């Protein structure tokens, strides 16, 4: 939802069905193999999300499972998105259809890239994450709701407290996740800071 005057997009919640990709340390090369980064736009990136893993799984990869084809939330394990700073990774997942992620933990640069795109990444404890994964696989039609304001994840089983860094939460709610505008507001404080540096000024 965006504010008419300012054009800021406030991300307060994401609700939809969910899909699950199990496993820890899933890296950005798996999420988007490097050979697909030769496009000068991101437009086509969604097709190639997890391409090599999906080929290897011969139609059995969660992203190829018809029952989850409308999912807008992806549930993952620990250290998801480790590896490269390539924004192509969250771009591929976003253009595949995902608008938010629930996981054990996220690699730092990946999480930062998601915030830059307005995609919430929230964490759950081990037991709750495992339960959520099992529940979604058993009932793909259930709605999952990530409430950024409250910092919770709600599924058929109920509402759980989720982890989201305060700063990230603020950015999503306030709309400052789209950072260029905010950074521009500093005005000539930028030039002043630069001028005071021995290697610029």
């Amino acid at each position: 939802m965006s504010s008419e005057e300012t054009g800021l997009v406030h991300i307060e919640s994401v609700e939809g069905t969910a899909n699950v990709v199990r496993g820890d340390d899933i890296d950005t090369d798996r999420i988007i193999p490097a050979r697909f980064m030769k496009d000068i736009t991101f437009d086509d990136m969604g097709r190639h999300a997890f391409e090599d893993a999906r080929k290897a799984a011969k139609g059995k990869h969660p992203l190829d499972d018809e029952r989850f084809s409308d999912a807008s939330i992806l549930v993952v394990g620990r250290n998801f998105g480790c590896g490269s700073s390539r924004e192509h990774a969250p771009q591929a997942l976003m253009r595949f259809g995902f608008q938010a992620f629930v996981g054990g933990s996220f690699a730092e640069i990946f999480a930062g890239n998601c915030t830059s795109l307005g995609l919430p990444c929230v964490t759950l404890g081990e037991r709750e994450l495992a339960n959520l994964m099992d529940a979604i696989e058993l009932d793909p039609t259930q709605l999952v709701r990530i409430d950024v304001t409250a910092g919770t994840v709600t599924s058929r089983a109920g509402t759980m407290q989720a982890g989201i860094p305060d700063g990230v939460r603020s950015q999503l709610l306030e709309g400052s996740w789209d950072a260029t505008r905010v950074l521009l507001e500093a005005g000539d404080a930028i030039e002043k800071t630069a001028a005071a540096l021995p290697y610029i000024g």
Partner: protein
Amino acid sequence: MTDRAKSLFQKVWDAHAVRDLPSGQTQLLIGTHLIHEVTSPQAFAMLRELGLPVRFPKRTFATVDHIIPTDDQSRPLKDDLAEAMMSELEHNCRDHDIQFFGPESGAQGIVHVIGPELGLTQPGMTIACGDSHTSTHGAFGAIAFGIGTSQVRDLLATQCMAIAPLKVRRIEVTGELQPGVFAKDVILAIIRKLGVNGGVGYAYEYAGPVIEAMSMEERMTVCNMSIEGGARCGYVNPDEKTVEYLRGRRYTPDDDAFEQKAAGWLTMASDPDAAYDDVVELDGNSIEPSITWGIHPGHNIGVSESIPTPNQATDEERAGVEEALEYMDFVAGASIAGTPIDVAFIGSCTNGRLSDLREAARVAKSGHVKDGVRALVVPGSADVQRQAEAEGLHEIFRAAGFQWREPGCSMCLAMNPDKLRGREVCASSSNRNFKGRQGSPTGRTLLMSPAMVAAAAIAGEVVDVRKIG
């Protein structure tokens, strides 16, 4: 500011903080912005959509490295997509008056190799680039971040990024390295000890006698793989070695102006009584030549060790170990030494510099690439290439059956034609062994030092480089 003792991280952060943001993050000025052809096109497109100019074109520098071929670099490039990327970067740099170190400049190369070579990388700077191995520049006492394309857009538009302050972990590597043990082995050991996500939320300060004894190129190898340890960045405090490396470079001043600058650089080092969020120690004496056996850089062991069994793993790690063993098709409990290889790659922003090539050449002299093994040496930059050729290293490599190539990222991530085929096993001096990393979806990567790669190329299998004459 109070007179409290500060780490280098805090000094550099404070000098570049433009303001605090409502989110609790800091608006941080980035003094030097490096760009390349893969992560910049969409950023420039977004800039055009916003109708904004590049705010500090003189603090922005470009090169082409990921997609450039290492054999035939003539234009147009054979790969249409690669040619489009290169043209896009060229015209973006022209439009915005940004210095582009392309092949015609004589200074082209992997972005994290040419920055220091040109003297663009200096102590006390903040540096950013749309590439995670930007941490390499931390070797000079800079705070250097890998960023995504939207942040590249932010930098082009404002020269700033929004980032939350980091904690600082000081890693002291004590003792001294044994012969045949190199900087690559040190960082692999650190990642093994602290884990691939141990550094999340941290800047890593590498210190101690082993780090102090390292050359600048060795320090770059260590800082390069900070990301593989989950750290946001990594650095080494500047000292006289840093100063001497930067003397006479294109973008550092000369004579008295240099001496003045150098004096300032040394003050950036962490104060002796600076406080850290965490301090860990690693015994340098105990580090062996190391090899990765699995599917992330934390899966590494010494050359005399055996490939782990799932039983040996913690509950948390066991599934990952099983997955790795299955993908690599390795036998749990088997020696890593003796693992056959199909391809050998010496290069990358981790280990593609002159000292790396010298170490590899020293080993290459002792034999010939085994029949059936394909071996590539890719210098990290045109400058490294020139210096290596002046010393005759290329002749040593060629005589030993290695291919001598043009500079670029090459087989590290195989966005250019240098790719693995099928299930090939590659002994590689690069930084990631993820599934499919080196261009074949089923290819397998063993990370190790350049000397170990050369030894493996000759033996046709993983060997202990210390045992070679």
